[in-house]
């Protein structure tokens, strides 16, 4: 299966209630797969092609506010368009999944893979103080597995979750283990599980209001403090990462998604040459594995971040690595994918010879 298709099948099986999206390369297969699969017959899931990404993200707001499992998928320029809506979703504490198949930018850029949305997704993105859970799959299997996980996290914390991937993983074909169909929740189950959902005011409760507005600055500040407390809790509980060959490594590559897969190959090539290279792969980009990067950085001679960008994640790695360990960046941009040999060469030139 293609990564995009695996993700689409996964959301149906996770018991999603609605998908709202707008076509954009390189992830249009998500909606195409859903439309062809007729999930409205399989599970009753709604699939709607909206008039824009702005409409899509606001459809998510409407659906999520009813306690429904909703999602959209898009690519970098579409995500930029959605940022106002994402800020509203974060402010109103609404759960949903937003998949971003990143492409090269800025502007219309290219349709080839990129990783330059790191800043706009891990640092908030829209207006106001908020963070989103950002999870980065590095395989088609993870494209499948992270759909259900993202819904779980989204509802556990009442927050949007970003599945941050790129055209390479979206288009790549790999074998996938597929799970069982989860049932969609009934209205009664939603009322029970999510008492905040706007499903109609019944006599036994006050009306539910989903809003991010409070004109009283002190109350608005209290709301912000509550959000910050939640973000802290997420940072404490939800860090995910993978370490390969870091125990004895002199040099560690920090990379996520497609870059991590290429870096893994670079690690193997380097090890064959006698270079002790390890790979540290953040799976959640927010919350970022801060402590783990710090621990790892204590025992190595150099860290190289590999990103398909001018260097965005490197800021977080530098912030958390111990001072005397050099942290450098290697990246390609505009849809160009770095090769394993390039990466090994950079390690040799930067750390070994340098």
């Amino acid at each position, binding site marked *: 299966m293609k990564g995009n298709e695996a993700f689409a099948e996964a959301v149906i099986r996770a018991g999603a209630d609605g998908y709202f999206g707008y076509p954009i390369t390189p992830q249009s297969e998500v909606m195409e797969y859903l439309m062809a699969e007729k999930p409205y017959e399989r599970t009753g899931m709604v699939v709607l092609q909206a*008039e824009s990404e702005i409409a899509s993200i606001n459809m998510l707001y409407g*659906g999520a506010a009813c306690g429904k499992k909703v999602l959209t998928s898009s690519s970098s320029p579409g995500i930029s368009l959605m940022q106002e809506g994402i800020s509203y979703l974060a402010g109103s504490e609404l759960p949903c999944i937003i998949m971003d198949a990143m492409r090269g930018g800025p502007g219309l850029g290219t349709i080839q893979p990129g990783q330059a949305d790191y800043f706009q997704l891990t640092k908030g993105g829209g207006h106001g103080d908020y963070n989103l859970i950002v999870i980065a799959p590095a395989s088609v299997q993870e494209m499948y597995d992270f759909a259900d996980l993202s819904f779980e996290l989204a509802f556990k914390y009442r927050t949007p979750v970003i599945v941050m991937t790129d055209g390479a993983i979206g288009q790549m074909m790999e074998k996938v283990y597929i799970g069982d169909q989860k049932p969609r929740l009934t209205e009664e189950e939603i009322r029970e599980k999510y008492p905040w959902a706007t499903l109609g005011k019944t006599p036994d409760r006050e009306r539910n209001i989903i*809003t991010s507005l409070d004109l009283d600055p002190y109350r608005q500040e209290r709301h912000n403090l509550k959000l910050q407390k939640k973000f802290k809790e997420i940072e404490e509980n939800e860090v995910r990462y993978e370490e390969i060959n870091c125990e004895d490594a002199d040099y560690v590559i920090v990379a996520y998604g497609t870059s991590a897969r290429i870096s893994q190959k670079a690690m193997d090539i380097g090890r064959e040459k006698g270079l002790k290279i390890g790979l540290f792969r953040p799976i959640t980009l927010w919350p970022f594995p801060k402590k783990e990067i710090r621990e790892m950085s204590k025992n190595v001679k150099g860290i190289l971040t590999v990103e398909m960008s001018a260097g965005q994640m490197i800021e977080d790695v530098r912030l958390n690595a111990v001072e005397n360990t050099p942290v450098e960046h290697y990246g390609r941009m505009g849809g160009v994918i770095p090769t394993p040999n390039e990466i090994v060469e950079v390690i040799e030139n930067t750390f070994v010879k340098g």
Partner: protein
Amino acid sequence: MSDTITKEQIFKPENIVYKKTSLMTDNVLSYCPGCGHGTTHRILMEVIDEMGLQSDTIGIAPVGCSVLAYEFMNVDMQQAAHGRAPALATAIKRLLPNKTVFSYQGDGDLAAIGTAETIHACNRGENFTTIFINNGIYGMTGGQMAPTTLEGMKSSTSPYGREWQAMGHPLKITELVAQLPGTYYVTRQAVHTPAAVRKAKKAIRKAIELQQQNVGMTFVEVVSNCNSGWKMTPVNANKWMVDNMFPFYPLGDIKVDGKLVKEV
């Protein structure tokens, strides 16, 4: 004294001729005295109440003067980003087809920033009810020119009057959506006199009733005043509305049973 009714007598249950619907909360309305929002809120809530739909109704508040509509309407509500209420309503109605869903929007929200969402929700024939308050101005932000501001009309961003050569024409969005196949009932009402209020309430009732039959978009425009934005007394604002707004935005049904009943 004997032939006049005392305050105590008025309060007696047998003398009550009119009661505030329980679907309006006791919160003090944030609208200016004389504004049409309060009346429109009330008749909309009366309809939901009379039809027994409270436990199955979800409303959308926009950005604009009625951003706080959820403070006054005693139904489950969501507050949308500026212009996006039709997108929210679309998703809610599709995910919960048995609910009654309405969006409540002003002219800046519906006919400027939200034009795309409005047109496409109407064109898809989404089964919710749009309540559209048109007062020809951005009230909440302090009286700026709106898409519906009349030619020659002064606002804080058209201080010498709207000139179409420089600022474009006023937009008759209601006539525009009436031409789309997805709209089923499109009407323009007002709430400036008791007779108009009764008519407007009937129109809203009809729209909500039609929504139960899944016939497509039901769209009720209410031409209203903005006395503070227009810099007039409430009485003068209503008179100005009758003399100036109604000729350009004539009251009455535009589309009934999916058919245009008026040339647009």
